[in-house]
């Protein structure tokens, strides 16, 4: 459940953590790997506690039977002086693990104090503490630990614990500082500060709970590290050699040449114990990592089935699609329709359930047309854009048909294309301009290079000189000077980056360009310039556009047809002018009332009450009814379908999915389906 939620949030917009979810990470530990890890760690803990009680011998007791292999009397054999290795191992667990644990506690305490303080203070305090942490990070731990340990009188574990803690706090402090820095800018901390809460209170109540997952990960990492370092120090003979720990066993094995006499039973168990315990700890840690970073979780178990299904489909199907011959470019098309979406569904497959983000969408795009798709965030419009470009990854599953008609009139179902066919089809016929050019451009490649690789992949015959000329031409089309070819994305302004994206989108002269909120991140003036440029290019080059945005007023200006989406469905579709004059669906009317128009008469801004619905728990009947000002008694019971509406004076046929139109009987199909 949580998995699906995170993925949907990821494709639409990033989730905002709330106070309530602060401890949700505890649930994440239930993954199978983490469970196995916890079992391993648990067993070791029990052994460490009861070890001395169940040990068959005194670990230091010398006996006559030296250097014997495993036997019934000595399960793990004996040392040169006849000491029982199993007993040493059991006693050793106590020292090794308590030193590891105690060092990690002290180190974590240090890193929490330094990290949180530095991150929260900022300014000079932050600079100084960060510098200190970085210095400790760069210093080689082991030689430093060796030196420190060597100066200490060999009193025992306490000194070792302090030494390990002092040399290993820096990494955790660094991570925590970065986390705190990003967290303190979040809304709820700002809110706490605005209400006048004291600094200490904010750190404890608001920042700290969010950090616990990070702290836990760094703590477990330090335990592993501390056990390894303690073993190294003991192996070097820098701890008290008569105090049994796993490292001490290895020290005695090494100085007594256990290797040379072939006494493998002497050194194998101790090292194995360290490695096993370390594995257990890192498995638990991996579970926490997956929680902190939801993208890692997506790659986990739940997606496997969907991935296999996708692979099967990719192998089996072949649609026979051929790249259009370059000469036949846009020579009087036989058919007007270029792209037809038929009953498209996108579902996120969870371990126990499926969440439908796009639900039975059918749309038709004509040549040279601008089809606008509008809706609030979470309405499924971006999910639809990724479906049209087949960019969804498991656990998302696409069903339905996506029929592409080429200039010659031949049709192909894009969803059935094989991997190779799809690769040829992409960009050549259909390209996409992403929401944020900042994220969609490869930060380490100059923009010229990012056009060049498209040309190289799709036009293998093109010479370097021709490609360079084409790149210059494309950049010229969008108003970027030729000398910026070698510029990296970060060297361009926001508007320039978006223009560069459009230039890349035009590289192969595609028939269709999907534009997913291409201007949302820009200021109004730049928005305007870019939209005008897109329209001008469209008129000149004749491509069709699917334009996705929440900005309905913008859409009305530039679209031929507008489709409005709500909860994964198209709820209204109409010619832009008809739509503007009179939206038929109450949701469309609400959306239209939420934005000022750039031109045209003034109207009152109203907005829509309530929030977009949770796709996993949609209301019965019409999904919009809880927010609808016009809802009546049938709305919660009947699931409306798109019905034709005819009005005097309308420019084109239009449809809306609302019980107000066509009478409740027209939606009778929806009655049976109401419990979808």
């Amino acid at each position, binding site marked *: 459940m949580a998995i699906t939620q995170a993925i949907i949030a990821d494709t639409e917009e990033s989730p905002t953590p709330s106070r309530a979810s602060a401890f949700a990470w505890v649930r994440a530990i239930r993954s199978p790997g983490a469970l196995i890890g916890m079992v391993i760690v648990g067993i070791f803990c029990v052994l460490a506690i009861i070890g001395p009680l169940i040990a068959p011998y005194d670990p230091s007791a010398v006996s006559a039977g030296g250097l014997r292999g495993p036997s019934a009397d000595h399960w793990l054999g004996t040392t040169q002086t006849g000491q029982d290795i199993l007993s040493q191992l059991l006693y050793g667990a106590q020292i090794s693990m308590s030193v590891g644990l105690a060092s990690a506690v002290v180190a974590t305490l240090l890193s929490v104090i330094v990290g949180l303080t530095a991150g929260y203070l900022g300014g000079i305090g932050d600079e100084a503490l960060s510098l200190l942490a970085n210095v400790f990070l760069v210093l080689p731990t*082991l030689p430093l630990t060796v030196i420190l340990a060597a*100066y200490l009188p060999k009193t025992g574990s306490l000194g070792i614990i302090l030494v390990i803690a002092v040399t290993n706090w820096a990494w955790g402090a660094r991570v925590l500082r970065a986390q705190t820095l990003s967290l303190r800018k979040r809304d709820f901390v700002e809110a706490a500060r605005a209400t006048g809460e004291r600094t200490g209170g904010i750190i404890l109540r608001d920042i700290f709970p969010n950090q616990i997952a990070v702290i836990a990960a760094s703590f477990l990492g330090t335990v592993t590290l501390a056990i390894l370092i303690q073993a190294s120090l003991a192996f*070097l003979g820098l701890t008290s050699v008569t105090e049994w720990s796993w490292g001490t066993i*290895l020290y005695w*094995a090494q100085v007594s040449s256990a290797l040379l006499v072939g006494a493998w039973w002497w050194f194998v168990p101790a*090292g194995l114990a360290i490695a096993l315990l370390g594995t257990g700890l890192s498995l638990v840690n991996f579970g926490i990592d997956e929680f902190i970073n939801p993208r890692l979780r*997506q790659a986990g178990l739940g997606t496997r089935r969907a991935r296999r299904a996708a692979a099967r489909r990719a192998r089996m199907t072949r649609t026979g699609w051929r790249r259009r011959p370059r000469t036949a470019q846009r020579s009087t098309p036989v058919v007007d329709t270029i792209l037809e979406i038929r009953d498209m569904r996108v579902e996120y497959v969870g371990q126990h359930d499926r969440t439908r983000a796009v639900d039975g969408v059918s749309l038709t795009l004509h040549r040279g047309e601008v089809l606008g798709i509008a809706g609030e965030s979470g309405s499924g419009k971006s999910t639809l854009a990724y479906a049209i470009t087949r960019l969804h990854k498991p656990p998302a599953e696409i069903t339905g048909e996506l029929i592409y008609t080429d200039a010659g009139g031949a049709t192909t179902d894009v969803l059935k294309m094989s991997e190779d066919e799809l690769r040829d089809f992409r960009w050549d016929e259909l390209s996409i301009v992403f929401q944020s050019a900042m994220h969609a*451009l490869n930060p*380490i490649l100059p923009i010229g290079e990012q056009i060049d690789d498209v040309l190289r*992949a799709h036009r293998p015959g093109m010479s370097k000189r021709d490609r360079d000329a084409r790149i210059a031409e494309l950049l010229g089309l969008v108003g970027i000077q030729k000398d910026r070819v070698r510029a990296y994305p970060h060297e361009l302004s926001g508007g320039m980056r978006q223009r560069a994206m459009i230039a890349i989108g035009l590289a192969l002269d595609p028939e269709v360009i999907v534009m997913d909120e291409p201007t949302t991140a820009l200021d109004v003036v730049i928005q305007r310039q870019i939209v005008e440029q897109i329209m001008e290019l469209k008129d000149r080059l004749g491509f069709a556009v699917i334009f996705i945005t929440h900005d309905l007023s913008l859409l009305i200006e530039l679209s031929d047809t507008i489709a409005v989406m709500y909860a994964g469905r198209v709820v209204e579709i109409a010619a832009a002018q008809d739509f503007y004059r009179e939206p038929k669906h109450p949701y469309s009317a609400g959306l239209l009332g939420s934005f000022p128009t750039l031109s045209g008469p003034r109207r009152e801004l109203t907005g829509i009450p309530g929030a977009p619905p949770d796709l996993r728990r949609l209301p019965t009947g019409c999904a919009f009814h809880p927010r609808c000002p016009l809802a009546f008694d049938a709305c919660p019971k009947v699931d409306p379908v798109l019905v034709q509406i005819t009005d005097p004076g309308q420019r084109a046929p239009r449809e809306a999915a609302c019980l107000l139109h066509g009478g409740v009987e027209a939606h009778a199909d929806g009655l049976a389906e109401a419990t979808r």
Partner: protein
Amino acid sequence: MKILLRRGIFYLITAWAAISLNFLLPRIMPGSPIDALIAKFRGRLSPQAIEAFRVLFGQKDTSLWQQYVDYWHSILTGQFGISYAYYPSPVTEVLGNSIGWTLVLISICTILGFLVGTGLGMLVGWKRGTWLDALIPVTNFISSIPYFWFAMVIVFVFAITLRWFPLSGGYSITTEIGFNADFLGSAVYYAILPAFTIVATAIGGWLIGMRNMMVTTLAEDFVRMAEAKGLPRRRVMFTYAARNAILPSFSGFAMSLGFVVGGSIVTEIVFNYPGIGSVLFKAAQAQDYPLMQALFLFITLAVLVANVLADIAYVFLDPRTREN
């Protein structure tokens, strides 16, 4: 380039901190190491040698500042005193004999381990959700193994049981040290087991780090865009996903050099390799403070130099750092 300057200043501060720490430790730690040392030599030391020790480890009759100035003078002129464990060799001579071995072995193995681990991590991340994910717990296990213990197992299997490789040392004693085929051949032959140990244990950490970064990067818009562009799979994997995923992995590489070098040094002990690891072991056994101090300083400075190189390489990898 500004970033390189800032990093340069940071490394100078770190070097200063390490050297000063070296000065402070014997003076603030309980007990007087130098008295213990002099007592152990039982009058075999010349007055000059004792004087040199006092400069390095503290003398009660001068001010702390004067001691600090004298200490810096000794460091800069390379006077680290006499080694106790290798008496009567001066510390610098002991270091000189062992540094080369360690530098060659560890620098090659660290880079190799990084390349192999990152390469595998890239593949496992790219093919996430397939059987390759099973490598994760395996690498978790391998990276939790203490280096030196893995070395013991390797020696036991390949040197003692199978007798494929020599047991210990850095070269065959029948060859003469120098730039000749015999010696180089035997040095390579002797280095195979230690090298394998270091590379094998280092791979795990890089693999998991790179795999996780790869998975994170694959969800970025620019990778989606590369796919939408219909680029060949290799291009998407290398130039779009891996090239970006490697950046954090690479700065992690610089950060963890200190740890990796430390772990590798301890493996030398098991192989009785003639590098500074074995020297460190002997120094620790004999409480040879002058040698330990010099080793710490040397290892720290070597790690700092490696960090500087890694930073310069990073500037070439990430155009965003080249901004002025």
